[in-house]
């Protein structure tokens, strides 16, 4: 055949198929329609080409039908089990990070357990609550402390901390679920992977304090809020008891309440008009406040301060703490918010039923979730104290985690284009979390050494004033009773020889001047006014001698001082 007689080969020109049927050269592969699919071998046998009498034997296998797209957004058992496997892996990592933090109880933990044991005994047997540590718990004394007391009765500080670990792990599960609902599976996995390794999660997950159950309850309230977004507006009230309970368990939960209300609005807005969505937020806020009102908790919360009982800190110091403890995570969440506002999807499998959102709606959701991570340091900055910020940051980290997950997925890019960036950021988060959580447990003077000294001097008839609340009451039960230890942070009611009644720091100072206490324990992390008043009274009286001083091995300025009356 001559070249001149052949038809020209252009992209649109038909080319002869092997079977004699012409197809378009522009089609990269044949359409998997019924006509072109190979038939089963049994039906197939041999084919006889039209232009050749010789029979051609076909391959003894079949090529399955090629799907139209490479992935399927619909739920499947494989996807479900892979996601659950990753969730389990994250939970194992989180548990391992927390469980490695073995140390003696911190004063706050010890105070909670002492108060909790007494309250539990009061609830079960009606015995009187005599400890002055009941008011030390930054939450309702009748919710978390008895629970911690029961756990402590079962296995001491380890039992109470394992209880917190259970709360923390459940929080991570809820976070996974709600993030998946808000965004998608990939974001959810990234979100919990980042959240599980930050310092606040690791520490609060192994710290006998009411923040652990409170964070869980906030997560539950957020979960209900997200999952009822497409349902009738009134259903958001289901989240109100959890939110109210969170506020009662730990007063610091109120820091997360504005974000929860905003979340109620932001999650409903794409599905309904702004008015009903706003009504949803109002309902949640009103429902939460209404649930707290009958128990008088609202008034207590109004009088509470996140800096209560904490020493002051400079603005620079608080900013440094903020950057160290939550800086990278917050930056990731803010970056995620910006990326999310700019672009809703990144070829991920959508979980929201294909509802498209406007930029304003996305901005509201991103801001609502990220704001608490910024609000917590801002409040501590305004109050000039960061003593309890490592625990309060947990609320901010929880709510910002979905956006941090978005940030991480956007960093990796579509089709896992830059996995190394995601790995880099996660490893940095892990390293910071590891270091900071370990430091958190090593920080401060060695309580074991302090207790060893106190034990030598504790007597059944002694009276002790201590700024290190809880430790002696919890650990020195064999040589003293909790009633012998007076909390200097709470102050002392003392009547002097002239019959004058003194209260608070003045009472403590007057009692020291009169030599009322056998031993005085100072803690530099106590409020400065208390510390100053006690130190001045000790110096002026001349009846007490400094017998031991313990400084922090990590170089922070916290110090315990033990003065003995001679």
């Amino acid at each position, binding site marked *: 055949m001559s070249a001149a007689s052949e038809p020209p080969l252009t992209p649109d020109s038909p080319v002869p198929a092997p079977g004699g049927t012409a197809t378009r050269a522009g089609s990269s592969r044949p359409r998997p329609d019924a006509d072109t699919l190979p038939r089963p071998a049994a039906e197939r046998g041999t084919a006889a080409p039209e232009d050749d009498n010789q029979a051609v034997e076909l391959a003894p296998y079949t090529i399955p039908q090629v799907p139209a797209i490479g992935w399927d957004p619909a739920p499947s*058992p494989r996807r479900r089990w892979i996601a659950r496997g990753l969730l389990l892996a994250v939970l194992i990592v989180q548990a391992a990070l927390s469980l490695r933090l*073995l*140390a*003696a*109880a911190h004063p706050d933990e*010890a105070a909670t357990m002492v108060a909790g044991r007494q309250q539990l005994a009061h609830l079960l047997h009606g015995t009187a609550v005599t400890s002055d540590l009941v008011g030390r718990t930054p939450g309702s004394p009748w919710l978390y402390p008895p629970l911690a007391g029961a756990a402590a009765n*079962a*296995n*001491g*500080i*380890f*039992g109470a901390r*394992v209880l917190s670990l*259970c709360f923390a792990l459940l929080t991570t599960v809820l976070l996974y679920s709600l993030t998946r609902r808000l965004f998608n599976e990939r974001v959810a996995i990234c979100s919990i992977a980042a959240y599980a390794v930050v310092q606040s999660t690791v520490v609060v997950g192994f710290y006998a304090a009411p923040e652990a159950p409170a964070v869980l309850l906030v997560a539950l309230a957020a979960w209900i809020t997200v999952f009822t977004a497409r349902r009738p507006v009134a259903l958001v009230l289901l989240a109100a008891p959890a939110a109210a309970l969170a506020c009662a368990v730990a007063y610091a939960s109120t820091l997360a309440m504005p974000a929860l209300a905003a979340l109620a609005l932001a999650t409903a807005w794409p599905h309904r008009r702004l008015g009903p969505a706003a009504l949803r937020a109002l309902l949640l806020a009103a429902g939460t406040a209404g649930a707290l009102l009958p128990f008088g908790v609202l008034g207590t919360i109004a009088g509470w301060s996140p800096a209560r009982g904490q020493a002051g800190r400079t603005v620079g110091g608080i900013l440094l703490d903020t950057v160290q403890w939550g800086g990278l995570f917050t930056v990731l969440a803010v970056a995620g918010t910006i990326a999310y506002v700019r672009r809703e999807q990144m070829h991920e499998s959508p979980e929201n039923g294909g509802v498209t959102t406007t930029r304003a709606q996305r901005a509201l959701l991103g801001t609502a979730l990220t704001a608490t991570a910024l609000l917590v340091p801002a409040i501590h900055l305004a109050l000039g104290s960061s003593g309890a910020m490592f625990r309060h940051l947990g609320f901010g980290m929880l709510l910002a985690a979905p956006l941090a997950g978005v940030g991480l997925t956007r960093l990796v890019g579509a089709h896992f284009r830059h996995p190394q960036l995601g790995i880099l950021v996660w490893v940095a988060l892990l390293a910071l979390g590891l270091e900071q959580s370990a430091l958190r447990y090593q920080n401060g003077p*060695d*309580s*074991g*050494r302090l*207790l*060893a*000294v106190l*034990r*030598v*001097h504790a007597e059944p008839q002694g009276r002790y004033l201590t700024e290190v609340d809880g*430790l002696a009451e*919890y*650990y*020195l039960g064999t040589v003293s009773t909790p009633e012998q230890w007076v909390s200097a942070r709470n102050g002392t009611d003392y009547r002097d020889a002239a019959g004058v009644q003194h209260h608070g720091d003045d009472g403590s100072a007057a009692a020291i001047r009169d030599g009322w206490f056998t031993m005085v324990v100072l803690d530099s992390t106590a409020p400065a006014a208390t510390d100053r008043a006690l130190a001045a009274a*000790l*110096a*002026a*009286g*001349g*009846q*007490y*001698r*400094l*017998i*031991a*001083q*313990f*400084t922090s091995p990590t170089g922070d300025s916290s110090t315990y001082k033990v003065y*003995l009356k*001679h």
Partner: protein
Amino acid sequence: MSAHPRRAGRYRRLTLPLLTAALLLVTACGPEDPGFAMQDTEDLAQPAPAAAATPGAATPNASGAPSAPAKPKAVPVGVPYDVTPLLKPAGKYLGAALPDVPGSMDALAPYTAAIGKQPNVLEYYAHWRGGFDTAGVRRIYEAGALPYMAWEPLDHSLAGIAAGETDDYVRGVAKAVARLDLPIAVSIAHEMNGDWYPWGRQAASPEDFVAAWRHVHDIFDRAGATNVIWVWSPNITDPAPNTRLAPYYPGDTYVDWAGMTGYFTRTGPKTFDTLYGPTMAEIRTFSKKPFFISETASEQGKRQRADIDQLFSGLEAHDDVIGFVWFNIVKRADWRVEAVPDTLAAFRQRVADPRYGFDIRNPR
């Protein structure tokens, strides 16, 4: 290949109970609480009980060598030495200042053999410069005695010390003392009410002395050196009757013992009460701290034996005088107790009383 649906369902149902059981197991087998673990050490910070060979009960063996002191019980690492039992012990300190101690402990054994009992305080004099003789102090303690450092600011004014001129040096000493973690008595600028030392009343005001004392004390406190017994040590008022002691007193918070330097001389007061009484009476007007005779001896002569009797009788008559240091060095005179056999015999007889020279590691 996937599991059988019914079996998979069974596994799923078992997950929660299995997880709960594992959690309970972990809780039940939890590690020991470090807060309790440290306290479980027996008799924390408590000294060992007295043994037959303790300084207080020791008598020289046939060769005259002192018996080895009892080894103290192990104290948890990091718990500061508790000096409070040493502040007002039931017994009385039997102290000595011996030549070359603590650089060399050679003088200790002959002295112990001579008086029949090992001293439980050994005083030495340290300049306000150089380092802190950690090894020497440790040698004294290991010999069974409380180290007593008379710290002499020969090259620095008290006003300069108070102003922080020597802070780096003082801080270094404070940290070394804290690290040493053994009991040590320290006096600063002793006999400050006299005029024979460069820091005496002719060179420094009482305010300078008090400011310097408090400044140094605070540095030691900040360093965590709670193992120091602070001995405020004026000279007896006899040679300086017009110099009041109260302005020199840093305060009860800064002082553990009210020391006194007072020697029995041929021309001075002849009795315990006339020698120390006026000083003790004056100090009692502003302080209730125990008295400690931080330097004494008797000048050789006819009265020496009577001086020994006066010293010990006075010590036994006053419960608030907790001990003394015998200056057993030839300096301007021969103060050695063993120089005169009669004096030595009297001294040996009086120190045989069990109240003298208790074991500092078991003072109760």
